[in-house]
Every structure is written in structure tokens, then in C-alpha cells.
């Protein structure tokens, strides 16, 4: 079978035939969507209503499927795009449906049809469509199922548009658009993660000066990262913003509650002083108290275990600093580059040559396409 890849603006001219589309879609669907019974096994933290059918789906966040894009030729220009695959799962394979998607990634109000996926020559309950979307973008979309508009029944991400209408949402890799946090929340989180990471050490500051602030413009643009607020924490807060929007939505509530409590208690401690103007020492104290689960002024009624939240932030901070930049942190590989510069032999040769393993143009490996 073939895959229809629709270029953004002039879709029909640029349809690319591709083998194995059906296999590709089934590969990314069956484990999560195929099941016999409807037990809500996948509601971790009450982030879904009990009646939400999504609670019966494993890893709902994997939809639409956001994947690397390649055209088979190894053309480096492909690196600027993701392959985004929308999936609709009907109740059964027998009844045929007409399903299309409309979204901001294509011409507005242009309905792009999903095709019914086949398995061993027979119809399945899955319908899918792949489109090519630039990295670093956020889009909203809706499905039209037999003439009726609806949100994506799998993907839990939604966005309320200015006119108050809710749409389904997805974002592509290396996205720096804030989705989760307000500015004040980001500020507090930056200070906390800043305290965890080693960039306020002597080595850290030297690195940031030499390497990061002077990263040439080109390489910054190449990695789709507006310089916006992604400075000292190598994008960790942006990573957390994204992981809470997608993979770990169930922790959004922890962050929302705790950041509000922290905001309040910091204001109380230094009456009137905005949290972002308070000193490093204030955050160090806060960190230490949270680690001991004994925080002066903490609202334990609202959130019983500040240490638990701190542990969560620790995991997210390290992951954000050192995971692949496509997840939104480790901007341009800055976290890796820090280690790569810190650890050298006496001839100055790096002892963490991450660029050799990682795909070009982020790294230097031209065999591996990412």
C-alpha cells in the first residue's frame, strides 16, 4: 500500500508514494488501541474523568504519531520536518466510514481524507493519514467522522481557541512554544531547576559563557530554538512544559498545585517581593525544606508531600537537560556539550564524543538518520 504525504501548501502536487503505510500505522497502533475489554487501566492520577474512554487506551499521548521524517534519500532538508500521522479507530472493521481531518497544518478548512488501513489484505478498524509538518510548531485540528465534527477521541491534548471553541492539539519536535506554564510559573520553576543543575558552578558558568551564549546564530536557527528564555537551564523548563503537555500529563496537577503554593509562600516570606526577584538563597532554603518535607508556610492540605514534588522536578530536570533536543530541552545539545567540554583528556580531546553517535546536523554521524 502507499502513503500519502501531503505537503503543507500545495498538497496534491506533492503526493509522495510510500510502501508499507498500512504496516507502519498498525505498528504504532495495535499495542495501544487493540484490546478486548473496557477497563480504565490508564488513568494514573485522576487526570482523566472515569468515564473518559481514553482511560482504556494505553499511552494515549502517542497520538497523533509524531515521528522523524525522511524521504528515503537521506536528504538533510528532511530533518526540518516531522511525519505526523493521524489515526482514527472505529468500533469495528465492518462498517465503512468517511473520515477526514482539518487543521492549521494545512490550508484552513481543507479536509484531508484518512484512508482505511488494511491488514493482510482485509479492512481494519483503523483509518490514518500522514502529513509532513515542520518541527517546532503547534497545531490544532478536528476530525470529521461521517459528516460530524469531533475532537480526536484518543489524543487528550486540546486547546481552546480565542473564540472559546475547543480543538484537538499536537506539537512537533523541538517545540519552544509555551503550552503548559504561565510566565510566573516558569519563573519559579527556572529558579528551582537552576538550583539542581550544575550551571552555577564555576565550570558551568565558564561553559555557558564560552559555548552557549556564543553559539553561532546559524546553529541556533538550525535547531529551531528561538533564544527565548532557553538560557541557563539549557531549556529544562521548556522540556517540562512539553512533557506535561504530552507524555506525563498526569503530573500536570502536581506542578500546578505546587507552583501556586510556592508562589504564595515566597510572597509571604519576603512580603511584597516578586518570586523572580528573590535571592538564590531563598530558593536554596526552599529546596532544602522541601527535601525534608518540612516547608514553612506550605499548604499541606492542598498538597501533602512537597518532597515528592521535588523528586519529580529532579527527574524532569535531569531528563530535560540531557535528553535528545527534540523533546524540548538540551537545546542544540547544550547539555551534552557541557559534559563534552568538561570531560577531556590531557590533550584536550573530549571524553564524551556525543556528536559521533548523533545524527547530522545535530551531531556528526552521517550514517544514522535520527
Amino acid at each position, binding site marked *: 500500500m502507499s*502513503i500519502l504525504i501531503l505537503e503543507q501548501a500545495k498538497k496534491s502536487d506533492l503526493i509522495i508514494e*510510500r*510502501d508499507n503505510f498500512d504496516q507502519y500505522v*498498525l*505498528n504504532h497502533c*495495535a*499495542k*495501544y*488501541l*487493540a*484490546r*478486548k*475489554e473496557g*477497563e480504565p*487501566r490508564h*488513568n*494514573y*492520577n485522576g487526570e482523566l474523568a472515569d468515564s473518559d474512554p481514553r482511560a482504556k487506551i*494505553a499511552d494515549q499521548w502517542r497520538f497523533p504519531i509524531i515521528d522523524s521524517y525522511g*524521504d528515503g534519500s*537521506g536528504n538533510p532538508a528532511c530533518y526540518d520536518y516531522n*511525519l505526523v500521522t493521524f489515526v482514527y479507530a472505529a468500533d469495528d*472493521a465492518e462498517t465503512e466510514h468517511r473520515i477526514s481531518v482539518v487543521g492549521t497544518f494545512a490550508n484552513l478548512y481543507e479536509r484531508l481524507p484518512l484512508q482505511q488501513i488494511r*491488514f493482510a489484505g*482485509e479492512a481494519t*478498524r*483503523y483509518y490514518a493519514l500522514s502529513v509532513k509538518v515542520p518541527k517546532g510548531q503547534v497545531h490544532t485540528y478536528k476530525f470529521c467522522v461521517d459528516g460530524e465534527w469531533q475532537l480526536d477521541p484518543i489524543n487528550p491534548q486540546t486547546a481552546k481557541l480565542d473564540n472559546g471553541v475547543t480543538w484537538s492539539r499536537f506539537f512537533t519536535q523541538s517545540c519552544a512554544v509555551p503550552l503548559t506554564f504561565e510566565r510566573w510559573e516558569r519563573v519559579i520553576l527556572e529558579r528551582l531547576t537552576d538550583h*539542581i*543543575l*550544575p550551571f*552555577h*558552578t564555576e*565550570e*558551568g558558568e565558564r561553559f555557558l559563557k564560552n559555548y552557549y551564549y556564543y553559539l553561532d546564530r546559524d546553529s541556533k536557527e538550525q535547531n529551531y530554538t528561538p533564544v527565548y528564555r532557553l538560557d541557563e537551564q539549557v531549556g529544562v523548563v521548556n522540556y517540562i512544559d512539553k*512533557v506535561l503537555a504530552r507524555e*506525563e500529563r*498526569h503530573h500536570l496537577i502536581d506542578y500546578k498545585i505546587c507552583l501556586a503554593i510556592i508562589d504564595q509562600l515566597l510572597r509571604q516570606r519576603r512580603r511584597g517581593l516578586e518570586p523572580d526577584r528573590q535571592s538564590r538563597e531563598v530558593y536554596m532554603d526552599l529546596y532544602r525544606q522541601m*527535601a525534608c518535607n518540612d516547608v514553612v508556610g506550605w499548604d499541606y492540605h492542598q498538597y501533602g508531600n512537597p*518532597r515528592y514534588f521535588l*523528586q519529580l522536578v*529532579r527527574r524532569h530536570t*535531569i531528563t530535560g537537560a*540531557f*535528553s*535528545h533536543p*527534540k523533546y524540548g530541552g538540551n537545546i542544540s545539545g547544550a547539555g*551534552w556539550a557541557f*559534559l563534552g567540554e*568538561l*570531560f577531556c583528556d590531557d590533550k584536550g580531546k573530549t*571524553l*564524551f*564524543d556525543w556528536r*559521533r*553517535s*548523533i*545524527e547530522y546536523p545535530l551531531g556528526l*554521524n552521517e550514517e*544514522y538518520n*535520527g
Partner: protein
Amino acid sequence: MQTHFDAVIIGSGAGGAPIAHTLAKAGKTVLVLEKGPLFLPQQHAPSGVSDYKRDELLATGAEKRITLAVANRGQSYYASHVEPDLNDEPHIYRETGKFNRRTPGDYATIEGYTAHVVGGGTQLYGAVSLRFSETDFQLHSYNEQRTDLKNDPNDDVRREARDWPLSYQDFLPWYEMTERLIGINGTSENQAKPFRADYYQTPLDPNPISGYIAKGMDALGMKRFRTPLAVITEDHEPSGRKVPRDPDTAKTGYVNRYGDPLGLKSNTWVSLLAPIKDLPNIELRANCTVTQLESDGYGNVNRVQYRDPSGTMRTVSGKVVIVACSAIESVRLLKVSALANHDFDRRIHQNDLLGKYFLTHCFGGARVRVPERFDKSLSLDSDWATEFCATDDYLKSHGLWAGAAIYNNTSDSALPISLARTLDAQDMDTIWKSFTERTELTGDQLLEWLKEDFGTTLSVAFMANQVPLYSNRIELHPTIRDKWGMPSAYIIKDWHSHDVALMDTIARECARILEKGCDLAEGSVQGGGVYLAENGLARIANHILGGARFGKDRRDSVLDVNCRAWDFDNLYVTDGSFMPTSGGANPTHTIEANAFRVAHHLLGRL
């Protein structure tokens, strides 16, 4: 859709793929039913991008939580993209609290799964591909007259040790076939086992950190050889794979627990299935979970039920049916089939041994910080191995029933996130725990910790036989079910006191290698066996063996010498479950060799 085949093979990993390869090449019609997806390396993907990536968050993904009614409900877990979802398809193990302070009860665990994807566990494996030793095949005879075994007051070892119905010599041609067809690099010199022919490709240069290992092994008079690894370093004719201009491209920190986007790691997809995929007589149905086997009342499995990728129930049949789902899942499938079908039940339970004598390995090792720093992110899984602890001399002088392979790890903790998440934890159940709890690691202290541990930790591991025990077993859990409504596997296992003694003894040898290699005082390095781990009872090392052992005596085994279930004519089981003892080395090479052997038996009857 075709529904009848010469052979229906369930599972495409080490136990299934060699059979598919052999039968398809001989022109038989073959259907492979594989639960997992068909994830491709770059060269097979039309887009040129692989479903496997050098990405730390694919090996150990986002946090999920256990929602099942088990003792660790609410606990976090982190699985790879090709491991099952634990809430959908749990494995449950019984914690007794014997070796640690865990509260007794039933726990869900991700230990005990290999990988659910075409290629099975061989997609994620470290690719250490050792043959078993000659003694490993004869542990009953070897121990029959012994009175010197440590910590075995009830004589369990002598009672429970079994000879395999075949010897090392019998396995030799199949080992050779595996080495040739899979694509393995290594050196045969200094291996204690007899080699007739050498099919190894030339190993790449070792990571310089392994120099300490070479030095330590030499100082102790341990003969060493390059650890055989299923990674091609030269163009591989049987599978048509080509090595990039710079073969060192295979070296990376993304080795163990990562699929290889470049297809250089020799998994059963690239080595055995891709080369036959275009033959008209083979079909691979990925994303299809087999849920039941039915028998016709005359000793034949006449229907194989599976759920297709939509979840729709379908059936197929084969002249022969081969079960190779990895031991725990194979036992479960057989037991679930027995629940639903009286004839099947009677035949598969002709004795009560199905699921009994479940095995993993005694494993463990030692770890140090070496005085210099190395780039561990450019390596394969292991460089040096020794069979020092598998010789007759060694076993007799240490009162041990069976030997072990020792090898160093080079790619462990090579990357920053893995360093953090495996701090004080090496297993899937306790990952991230220590790093998040050690809240003092921030800023300067975090930097100090990185300086101490990044590129400086060196570990030596051992893999040894576990004493087979009737009470170590796989059952069906009485209450927990998977997303298909089928009872989940219930793992009940313990370490024997001789296992503990053996682990202590061999862990000490690993520690000595490091002491000698790094010029440290004797006794300064602490080694340990897995039983010491916080969840030492759950730990399986991804080596899932036994539970349907083969043998010559139908009263003492589940399968006959050809891995056919005794009271069936056409039902075979060929994953790790056939093993009567677990061998003193990583199991995959032997599972594959055995599957090639069974395949040739099948050619004789199809």
C-alpha cells in the same frame, strides 16, 4: 487471507526466527504470528528513518503508574517502547521478603519481559553470544558423586540437577550455524570449549577502559578472549548486510536496551527474517497476539487463535505449531489453552511439570571507579570474557555445582540520563528511585558526582547456572488479568542457598579482576550477587528460561528431545523454556542453536 500453513510459528525472537528461516528456505509455507510491531532498521524503512533511535527516552520512557490491584499499586515504572504496557499485560511475582525488606505480597513487575517486537529480545539485547560449556550440558552426571557442594544441606543440587538429553558435541553444528547465519564477532582462542571451525568476524578494537580488565585477568592467570558479540563488523554475506565505511559507527552508548537503527546488531529480524521476507511461501503477521491453542482430541493442535491488529479474533492452522513467546509467556499460553480445552489440558499436563523449574541465571558482579576517565559512549556491550570460573579445577576447589562466564560491561552508564536513573539501581523496577531520593545532589555536588562517575565506572559481570527447583514456577495468577481478559503470569521463585554461595564466590572473582586491574588492595572491592538487590526475587536479567524442559523421560520433562510436547504430535516449544538448566552464559545463542536443530528435525517430517 491464507489460513493453513505447513508451520505456524508464534513469536519471532531467538526461538522462533531460526525455524521460520530454515523452513521458508526449504520451500515450506510458514506463518509467523508476532505480537509486537515490525520495527525496521534504516535500510529497510522506505523513509530511511528507523523506528529505533539513539534516544535515551526510548529505552526507558516516560513515567507510568501501576493501577492494578497489587502491592505496588501506584508505583512508578518506566518501560521501553517495545516492552508491554504493564497495566495492560502485567507479570506478577510473589515477594516473600526473604532477601530484603520488601513487604510480602504480589507485585507487578516489568522484569521477566524481553521485548515485544519482531525479533523479540534480540532487538534490545546486549548481544553477548557465548556458547554454553561442555559441563553445562551434563550437570547431573557432573555432580552425581560430589559431596563437597557448598550450602546444600538437603542435597537438592544432586537431586535436581539434570543432564540435557544432548551433549555439547550434539550442539556443535548448530552453534556453528548460528554463528555463521546470525553474524557474530569474537575470538575462539582461549575459549575452553572445543571449536571445530571459527565463524567469528573480527572484533573491533576494545574500548580503552577495558585495558584494566585485560590487566586484571592476566594478573590472575585467567585466560581471556574477546566477548563474542552479535554485531557485524564486516559485510555479512548470509544476511546481505553491509558495514559502513567506518565500522566503528556501530560503537555507541545506545547499545543494551536499544534497538539498532543501523541494523548492525544481529537481531533475528536483520539476520534471519529480512533475508527471506520476499519469498512467496512466508508470511509475517506482526501486531498479532496468539490467545489460545486448541487440540483436536487426537494429539494435534488444530487451531491457533489470535487477535489481529484491530483486536478481532482470527484462527489459523498449521501442520506443525511452534510456540516461541519467551518462556513465561509460552507457559502462560499453554496454561490458558489448557483452561479452555479439556483435551489440551490433559495432554499438556500429562505430568505436572509445565511451568515448574522456571529458571533465570545467578548473576551479579562488581564495579569500581577507575583512576582515569574514558569515553564509554563509543563502545559495544562488552570487550573481554573469561571462562576461568567454569573449569573443572575451579568448580571442585570451590565446592560449586556449575560454572559461570565472566565478562566486562563497557556500555553501561555511558550516557548521562542512564547514569542518573541507574544510580544504585540496575533493574527496571527501581530505576530513578535513588537519584530522585538523593536530593543532596544539586549544583556543585551534582557536578562532583558527574565528575566521579561519568566515564569512570567499570563493571564486571558473571552469568551462572541457577539450581533448578520444582518450587520455582510460572502459574496463572488467580485474579489479575490482561487486556484480553486472560489470566496474567504469576512468577514464584526463590534463590537456593547454593545459589547464594555461588553468587558470593563468583562475585568475589569479579571483584578480584578489578582489584588487580586497578592496583587496588585485595578485598577493597565489594562484589555482589543479584539476591542482594532490593527486589532480588523479581530479578531475571532478561534471561527467561525453563518451565517446559526437554528430556528423554516423559515423566521428568514437558518436551521430548525434539522439543515436541510429549502427548502432542505437532506442538513444539522452542524458546528459552526448553532448558533443563540455565547454562553458565547468556542464553540467546543456545536458544537459537536449538531452534535451528529443531527446524532440521521438522524438515524431516514436513
